[in-house]
């Protein structure tokens, strides 16, 4: 993990607090972003820049931990000694210092525009914060809005890269087409563009409202030997909807319309399904040693990012 020195920051040009970038990233956001970067930098002070310690299967020299074997893992890294003693299939994890490549994928589908406050706003702020922290640490950072019309700025290193990233993210709008793009397809498209780049970390910020489920997209990331981080965002009114009576429900992405009478039982069923969706996501991430964070759109982005760094292992 690399630490962003002051000289580097100065060489990278002006910080994000030099002025507002669009309406989404105002002065207040930029000040908080700078403050967040400083906080994280103090936490990681003393390490050589451009280096980040990651836990990977099979790479590196220093044993770090075990994780449960799942089908598809390379059997070469199975800890046979452990299997002989405990009959437990586990893979050996090694810590490796590397120059990290960070890709932040923000789901910009129509469903992300729902909620009060909108989930997309928090997702973009989190994406911007992760990118800025990564750039501050001289990591190789790329940002992609999945489902957006325009492609993101090319990945790069140095804090000066933050400005095009912020402009890009500020211009992201949910699509108007009435079709639900699969999260897996969007990730697949991103990976096809990324082909040839080094291994690294992919942070996927989404509501994971996908009929195919969340695991397909994350599994795709993982199979490309990328370390995945899942950030699931729900709006407060999605956790506890205030709908009552006879309604015509319209899906934000597909435009499909269905009549429904919202009764207490219907609300209970909804809550049960929503909880099951989150439970499945967390279970999958736990199985795959993927850091998973579930947040609500009313939470401040800096608190979310700080929590990710402090509790999610991003600080190494």
């Amino acid at each position, binding site marked *: 993990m690399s630490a962003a020195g002051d000289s580097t920051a100065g060489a990278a040009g002006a910080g994000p607090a030099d002025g507002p970038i669009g309406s989404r990233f105002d002065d207040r956001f930029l000040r908080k972003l700078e403050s967040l970067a400083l906080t994280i930098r103090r936490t990681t002070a003393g390490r050589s820049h451009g280096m980040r310690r990651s836990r990977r299967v099979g790479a590196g020299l220093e044993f770090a931990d075990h994780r449960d074997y799942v089908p598809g893992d390379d059997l070469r890294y199975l800890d046979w000694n452990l299997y002989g003693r405990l009959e437990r299939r586990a893979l050996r994890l090694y810590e490796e210092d590397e120059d990290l490549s960070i890709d932040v994928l923000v789901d910009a589908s129509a469903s992300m525009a729902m909620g009060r406050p909108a989930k997309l706003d928090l997702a973009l702020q989190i994406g911007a914060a992760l990118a800025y922290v990564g750039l501050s640490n001289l990591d190789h950072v790329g940002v992609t809005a999945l489902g957006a019309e325009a492609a993101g700025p090319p990945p790069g290193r140095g804090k000066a890269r933050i400005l095009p990233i912020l402009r890009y993210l500020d211009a992201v709008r949910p699509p108007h087409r009435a079709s639900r793009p699969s999260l897996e397809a969007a990730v697949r498209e991103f990976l096809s563009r990324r082909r040839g780049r080094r291994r690294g970390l992919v942070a996927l910020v989404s509501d994971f409202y996908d009929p195919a489920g969340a695991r397909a997209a994350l599994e795709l990331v993982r199979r490309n030997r990328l370390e995945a981080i899942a950030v699931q965002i729900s709006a407060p009114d999605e956790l506890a909807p205030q709908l009552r009576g*006879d*309604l*015509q429900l*319209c899906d934000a992405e*597909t435009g499909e319309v269905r009549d429904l*009478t919202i009764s207490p039982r219907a609300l209970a069923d909804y809550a049960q399904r929503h909880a099951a969706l989150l439970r499945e996501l967390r279970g999958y991430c736990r199985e795959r040693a993927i850091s998973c964070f579930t947040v609500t759109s009313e939470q401040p982005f800096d608190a979310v990012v700080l929590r990710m760094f402090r509790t999610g292992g991003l600080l190494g």
Partner: protein
Amino acid sequence: MELHGLAQVIEGASGALSTTAAAVIGAAGAAAITALYLLRLRRRRVVVAFAPLWLGAPGAERAARRTRRVRHWLSLALALGLFAAILIGAVDSQRGALDHGAIDRSGRSLVVLIDRSASMSATDEAGSRLAAARRRADEIIAGLTGADSALVASFAADATAESGFESDPRRLSRAIAGVAPSDEPGDLQRALAFAAAILRGRPRPTVVLVSDGGFTDDALRLAPVDPDGRPLDVRYAPVGRRADNVGLLSLAARRIPADPGAVETALVVQSFRPTAATVGVEVLSGGAVVEKVELSLAPGERRRLTLPNLFAPDARIEARLTGTDDLADDDRARATIPPLPRRRILRVGGPDLYLDGALLGLGRTVHLDRLAAADADQAAARARDYDLVIFDGVTPSAPPKSGRFLYFDPQGPGSPFAPAREARTVRNPVLDPASLHRDHPLLRQLDLTDVNVAEARRFALGPGDVALAASFDVPLIIARERPGLRVAALAFDPRRSDLPMRPAFPLLVANALAWAARDDAGAPAPSVDTGATVRDARESDTTPVRTLALGGQVLAPPDPPTRHSHGRFRSWALILAAALLLFEWFSYHRRWTT
């Protein structure tokens, strides 16, 4: 929620609903409600992030659709049921009005006139005649149609409106229950004039008289008319079952001046029974019975009863009839007798225990002053300050010109009565009973038989002098009445007779005081006529009148009541409508119905 608006429209229109209109409204309303339910209402569109979270499994959704469809039709059935209930209530009301097709009573204005006079307190009906009248009035009110309005009034000597014009039977019943009995006579003409006045200008005016019919012939002589002179429709609902009453019609009493503790009482008792009656009459003074008399009365007989000399020291006396009859109000009469005025007496002379005893017997009704014999002239001069001056064995120097005096044994030049030619006295005079003037107030209730007198003077009678008692030609008791002057004299010294030993002596002194205190017209000043009862003899006649004629025209009975079922059906229909509304509301908010 559309059911609520529909109910309001239907209820608002049901006030003047005919059967045909009800059928049209029913068909149109049912069609409208069905159309509203067949047309799918546009639902509020809500965009959600991920619709699959809201929708269950396809099978469950199909079941929910079926259930929703069933609830949809159930809601339609509820709406139609509610509409039908309200419509039935409205139509049933009209049917009730049309049930008695022979009688056109649509939109009547009724005044229910309840008699609350004294005779209505008779108990020949359950409770009383007034209670029966209230029940009868309630029946009349319950028989009104929805288009009628009624006012409850009551009358005795005056007429009173107990309510305004109402169509609500409950309010009218409360007004009927508030009619209170009275001990006044009933003034029918005044009550009818009152009813006619308040019915003026109202549609189809009708008066229903609820009474026992105890009115005078004068009250029944005039036909009822409204203020414009047009005939007034008056119906008569009789109450009362029998005539069983003996009434104490009047009580009069006066105190006897000569005896302040006694009263003279006169009563009038009448039987209103169709058979002979025997009743007891009791007179009470101070709560104690002082006289009891039993009377046998022929049917309808009126008896005047005089009780001349009752001992009744209390100022209040009461007369009451004993026995049982239907009307208790006329079985008692009370009178308060004013006290006698306090008289002033001046006694002149030496000690005389007999005279003092007689004066003491007058009690607190007299104020007594005393002067010695030497002050006889002074007493004569002060005579105008006293009701009576008694010269007991003394005579002033000159006969008085005015005043009221009682002389015992006057003598000398000052005697008011001149001596006779033969001046010598008479020894042992014998009182001649034939000479007694028993009707003179001085001798009232006096028994002077065999009075022994030792010696009497001889007086010559002047003009206007009366010898009330004499021994042959010798006057023994003399009375003189002249303008401004009354003089009574005993020609003998009572102390030289046995008169003071007899009861006649204090009575003679009391009579002298009463005679002296009479005014110049001769009326007995202390007597009073008081205590006449306030009862009207007509009210004691409890004979019920089944058929009443006013102005020679027999009053018709009230219209028979309308079919009561309509109120019941209407109430149930409205209750059902309310229940359906409640159920619809509850199910709507609980999302049972679509």
